[in-house]
């Protein structure tokens, strides 16, 4: 579909429309806004993208995305080296960081086990994880994986692999969300919450 704009601009719109959360219409609006606000948006954005394109890479230690071989979390001396939080994806790591409650380090698996999708232990960053644990500093691994069939399968699998290495393996609790009302919870969540009840 032609917008009557030049070929390069249409190319930009087509690329933007592939981004999550954007479609052809919102991509056109975004591109138009950028061009109108050239100094404020377009130039800085182009520069930022060039820089990110040149420097963005996966942290060799944890799999987080940063701009150097080791990410800021892995190099920070303030981070507790004895606790490791294992997540499925970088977006999960970022979600944990937004909450600002976890002071340990991370390990990003890059997916969860799914035989149907052809994702096995070799596709996940498991050897690296086992190497990290075997180095001896880590005392506890927290499995922060989704409450899906694949997520739980992966959690079970990891627990079996990591416990023999002499560390404590824990998983995030499942149950009533903060600020949530029981009335709105599905049966599965209520039964998980009931099983995981604790004394006050």
């Amino acid at each position: 579909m032609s917008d009557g704009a030049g070929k390069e601009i249409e190319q930009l719109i087509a690329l933007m429309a592939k981004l999550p959360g954007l479609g052809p219409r919102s991509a056109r609006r975004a591109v138009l806004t950028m061009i109108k606000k050239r100094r404020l948006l377009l130039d800085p954005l182009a520069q930022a993208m060039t820089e990110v394109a040149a420097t963005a890479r996966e942290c060799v230690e944890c799999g987080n995305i940063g701009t150097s071989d080791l990410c800021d979390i892995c190099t920070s001396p303030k981070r507790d080296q004895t606790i490791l939080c294992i997540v499925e994806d970088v977006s999960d790591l970022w979600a944990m960081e937004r909450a600002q409650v976890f002071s340990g380090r991370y390990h990003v698996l890059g997916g969860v086990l799914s035989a149907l999708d052809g994702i096995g232990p070799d596709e996940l960053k498991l050897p690296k994880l086992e190497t990290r644990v075997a180095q001896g500093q880590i005392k506890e691994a927290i499995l922060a994986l989704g409450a899906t069939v694949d997520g739980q399968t992966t959690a079970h699998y990891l627990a079996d692999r990591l416990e023999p290495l002499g560390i404590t393996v824990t998983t995030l609790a499942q149950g009533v969300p903060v600020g949530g009302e029981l009335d709105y919870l599905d049966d599965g969540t209520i039964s998980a919450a009931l099983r995981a009840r604790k004394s006050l």
Partner: protein
Amino acid sequence: MTRLALTSLKLAAFRSHASLRVETDGRPVAIYGPNGAGKTNILEAISMLSPGRGLRRAAAADMARSATGIGWRVTAELHSLEQSHEVVTGVEGDAARSVTIDGKAAAQVALGRIARILWLVPVMDRLWLEGAGERRRFLDRMALSFTPSHAEASITYERAMRDRNRLLKDQSRDAGWYDALEDQMARAGAAITATRMEALSRVARAQEDAATAFPRATLSITGPDGEDAPDGSEDQLRRAFAEGRRRDMAAGRTLTGPHRADLSAIYTDKDMPARHCSTGEQKALLISLILANARALADSFGAPPILLLDEVAAHLDTDRRAALYDEICALGAQAWMTGTGAELFDALGPRAMRLHVTEEGGESRTQAEA
């Protein structure tokens, strides 16, 4: 009225019905008309107000009026216990079937919590003669009618089993991966078996106490070859999956577990397996089970379910037919029944409303009669 009934039903572009609108007062509904007029289509549309693929097990897209290609919609006012709900389900374009309850989008499983719908269709006449799959589905619908969360356990089990089957086909020997999947299968599987057993015992209790003209059936769950089923506990399943890996790998699929269970029925008074009974007796057993299921639900859910009985009158003699109608009315269930002639429903008298369905140029026309 503390009960469960449709008070209004609207179909748009659903199979042969371009547009249908029926208001009911909660009484049973007798639908009559010639073959191919579109009677069963009305029952199928109502069955879509429960989770799953409905009484024909058809793909949602196939229910559209083929000529139009714009999808279909079923809109119903459902009186459930003390409340009325507006339930809309349908398909638009290529999208999956959508459900809204009182104007809010909902998951299909949510339908199971407000409506309980049981059906009996002619293909089920061969239930005791054919493969275990149909009987398992019959058993699972029974379990689902008492415990809506049965659906979630089944989905979890199926999902983990598909993954395990993939591993088996790929000849994977990663014991840890099998352990992890089998753990989930064992948990979900134990829940599935428990709700099935619970359903059977509720139906058995409902048969014991009942004054009914229909024969009693003794139901039990067996293994795939009719052998006694193991207890189905989490531990038992976990062991069975682990021990069966080598054999399963040779077969390329999981050969043990609740997905292989079968339902066995015995005509209690004759102590005869259902499959050896006459066609008429088998039909009577099925009706007996549906009625028992409905009575048990009236107790546990608080209202008898909506019954969809397709061509049920045709196979019964006059006395049995009258007995069936009496039992439905005593139960207070809204039964939607089909038959070719109005006279099949004479014994109902004023206890039911009637719909006359005819067909003209491939389109159904429906006329309500008081």
